[in-house]
């Protein structure tokens, strides 16, 4: 073996992993010990996903409270301070403790399987990354009990998820809530960077024989670009957090304007991280769609080289667009023009991707199974999200729309309509692989339709509220501004989404025991994860595979017409 990976089950199986003293099997204690001690990429992947769904429920509940508060003008359900904490924790959690763990979970589980490896390059580092991410989240949520602060400060962080300086300085944020926020993110950020390094190294060094970069599944390609972005752009955020901690505890004056610091400096640091972060989340979603659409259209992905090139280009260009979040701070005309230009350039590779998915579906035999339904909804919703993104990229239009509910609608279209829908597609697609059982289709259809309807009811009206001048982050509003009806529809939609999410969680739990047996390859798919059993054994593959094309399992199934003849 080129990488010295053990080949047989015996070499890496339980024999190589003797039971530790006091370890039990088959009991609750044993199960917990297994969770805590495991370094298996599949278990860690599922733990990442489990963490994601856990915080999805928590942060989703916060969203429900936010929406209930806004259903009528002058509502007094929650205090202003509590409301500020709610949307701060909702936003921060959804980004760092829901979306990030979910994409790490998917990459953790699928990348080694898809490249024909036995595990990640650094299994212990993998466990370390997960636990840092998880403890970072726990640290931040501990602020609800551990950071009472002074009177009126609010217990949890209440400075919004991008925490604009100087609101975070000691003068304006008394108590310790902001410290929980920055330290929690610092810890999680270290976990993300180590996880990103691990996945990159795994992709570069642990591909099976014949798996050239040019034959990697697109999900692996997109994970690679994503992890490159994680490793490059998480550090600016961590640096900013360290500066903030230095300022709050040791009297440094980076952002404190009253001592000559710069409020704008924080925004540069935050958005240099913050914009690539959007691509960190959405690129793996592109990867999922690029796996699901071909399989359920029964055709290979259309224009693979262009798909790879577009992904890499998005990765690079995303590094140079951050200041489009700052069009209203009073930048020079030249800077604004440059960043508007860079922002719109991203539309080109993104457009190529959408057209290539369309090209894949064109001429195929589209099977409308659940993963494909979510993928199709993704395509429409991401199209709209991309177009509203262009509107926001046109700086003069952005001067009107920035910091309004239009922006809320836009990025929820990206994050819910895009990323969460892709994660749903991935869940229905890969659940049979991970658990050996299918998710219930009837519940799945209820989930799909309710979630899609709920999503549109929630976020479509918010575009209009923004156009009518409703700013974001307000805990209440006065009657007569024309916002009432849009907020009411939005709140109803939020509850429909909540019910749909509940159905999905029930489906996840029930199907693990009662679902139909899936078999190794229920979707008749073509990538390597389907060449092993469901669920895969600890060692993934009994014999490490050797591939000759981008669709190794197609080659196995169609020896008379293999892909490698055409490459």
């Amino acid at each position, binding site marked *: 073996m080129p990488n010295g990976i053990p080949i047989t089950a015996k070499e890496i199986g339980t024999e190589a992993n003797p039971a530790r003293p006091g370890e039990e099997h088959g009991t609750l204690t044993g199960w917990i010990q297994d969770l805590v001690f495991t370094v298996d990429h599949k278990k860690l992947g599922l733990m990442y996903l489990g963490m994601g769904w856990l915080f999805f429920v928590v942060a989703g509940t916060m969203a429900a409270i936010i929406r209930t508060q806004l259903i009528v003008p002058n509502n007094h359900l929650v205090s202003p301070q509590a409301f500020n904490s709610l949307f701060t924790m909702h936003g921060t959690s959804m980004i760092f403790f829901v979306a990030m763990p979910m994409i790490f979970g998917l990459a953790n589980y699928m990348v080694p399987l898809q490249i024909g490896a036995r595990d990640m390059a650094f299994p212990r580092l993998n466990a370390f990354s997960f636990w840092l991410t998880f403890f970072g989240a726990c640290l931040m949520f501990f602020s609800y009990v551990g950071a009472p602060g002074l009177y009126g400060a609010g217990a949890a962080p209440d400075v919004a998820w991008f925490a604009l300086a100087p*609101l975070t300085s000691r003068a304006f944020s008394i108590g310790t809530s902001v410290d929980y926020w920055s330290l929690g993110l610092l810890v999680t950020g270290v976990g993300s960077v180590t996880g990103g390094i691990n996945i990159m190294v795994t992709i570069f060094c642990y591909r099976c024989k014949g798996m050239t970069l040019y034959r990697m599944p697109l999900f692996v390609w997109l994970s690679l670009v994503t992890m490159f972005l994680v490793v490059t752009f998480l550090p600016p955020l961590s640096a900013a957090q360290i500066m903030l901690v230095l300022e709050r505890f040791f009297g440094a004056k980076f952002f404190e304007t009253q001592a000559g610091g710069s409020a*704008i400096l924080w925004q540069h640091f935050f958005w240099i991280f913050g914009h690539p972060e959007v691509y960190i989340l959405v690129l793996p979603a592109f990867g999922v769609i690029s796996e699901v659409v071909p399989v359920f*259209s029964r055709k290979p992905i259309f224009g693979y080289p262009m798909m790879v090139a577009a992904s890499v280009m998005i990765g690079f260009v995303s590094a140079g667009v951050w200041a489009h979040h700052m069009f209203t*701070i009073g930048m020079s005309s030249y800077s604004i023009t440059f960043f*508007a230009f860079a922002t719109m350039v991203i539309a080109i590779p993104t457009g190529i991707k959408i057209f290539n998915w369309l090209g894949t579906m064109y001429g195929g035999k589209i099977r409308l199974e659940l993963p494909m339904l979510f993928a*199709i909804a993704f395509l429409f919703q991401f199209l709209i999200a991309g177009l509203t993104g262009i509107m926001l990229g046109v700086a003069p239009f952005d001067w*009107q729309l920035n910091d309004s509910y239009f922006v809320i609608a836009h990025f929820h279209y990206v994050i819910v309509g895009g990323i969460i829908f892709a994660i749903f597609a991935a869940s229905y697609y890969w659940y049979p692989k991970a658990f050996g059982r299918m998710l219930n289709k009837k519940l799945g259809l209820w989930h799909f339709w309710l979630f899609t309807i709920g999503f549109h009811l929630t976020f479509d009206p918010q575009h209009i509220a923004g156009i009518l001048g409703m*700013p974001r982050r307000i805990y209440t509003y006065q*009657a007569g501004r024309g916002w009432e009806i849009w907020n009411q529809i939005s709140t109803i939609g939020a509850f429909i989404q909540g019910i749909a999410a509940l159905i999905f969680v029930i489906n996840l739990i029930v199907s693990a025991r009662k679902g139909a047996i899936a078999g190794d390859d229920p979707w008749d798919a073509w990538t390597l994860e389907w060449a092993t059993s469901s669920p895969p054994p600890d060692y993934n593959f009994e014999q490490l595979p050797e591939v000759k094309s981008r669709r190794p399992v197609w080659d196995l199934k169609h020896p008379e017409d293999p892909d490698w003849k055409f490459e």
Partner: protein
Amino acid sequence: MNWNCGSRHGHERQTPVRFRRFSLIHRNPSTLGVAALTLLTLASASAQDSTIRAIQNIFDPLSAPAEILYRISLLVLATCAIIFLIVAGLLTYAIIRYRHKGGTDDLEEPPQVYGSAAIELAWTVPPILIVVVLVLVTARTIGEIQKPKLPNDAEQVRIIGHRFWWEVRYPKYDVVTANEIHVPLSDRSKRIATEFVLESADVIHGFWVPQLNGKTMLVPNHTNTMWVEPYKTGIYLGNCTVLCGAQHANMLIRVIVDTPERYQQWLNEQKATPSNDQAVEEGQRQFIANSCGACHDIGGTNAKGVFGPDLTHFASRQTLGSGVAANNEENLRSWLQDPQELKPGCLMPNMKLGDKQVQSILAYLRTLK
């Protein structure tokens, strides 16, 4: 009802007071949604246009810069709508046309197509062209807004964001007020522009009145400017758009667009020192004795504070608490008893005034026309 406008033209005007339902919350706001409307009569019935422009639709601009933004917005919106129709149409067509219709036993695979350089090139070029056009239009519009050719005699207003209210200064006239920004009406034949110089005293705020112009942040240590050139009189409502703390939501903006004559008259009224009314002397004494003057300034008295809004002409304002409530006796009493009731989290503490003190201060403040 009548006022002599005192301008060069010196003619007399009479305008009926318009009673309009509008949206200020009152003391115990009803939670029954839209029903929470309050009747408000303007204290000074003059020619001031009391139309409340509460619905600030960005596609209904009433000022020169907002109109420039509106034009490019329409172009971008139309472009995006066309792209959406084409791509969504193709997607829908592909899904319907190529949906698998055979039974589950139909296992034949469709033709395996890997791509096509010609087709891919064909759908890469149009997006590039669209981007080029949009960037050029964007660059031109940015110049039009950021480097406007304003008339030399443009009015200048300094707006300083505080948590959670707006300090408003007219340096040319030595007038200081708060939360309600009076600007003159422009005329397409004779332009009257007003430049806002935006600064912040504490954290970042955002100034946004959609029908007048796009938003601009108020950043501490960093002066920004924006301009307005309104075409219609009336009261324009807006909001702070950058989270600045607990009462970010009630850091409301009122821009009052007056005819140039009325605007001049308003400036003259604001410049004058309010006359000392003997009847409310006790209120003024209480105001000073209870250290209200540590934060508030009232011209002609010892109250010289700078942390809170200037109250010299407090009674001439339509609202209190930066737009949180109508400036009437009931709301003012509530405010003096405990500001945290109407605006929880605002920086004015409960001064624990007795009923008599509240009554006398209230009477005093209501004379500060």
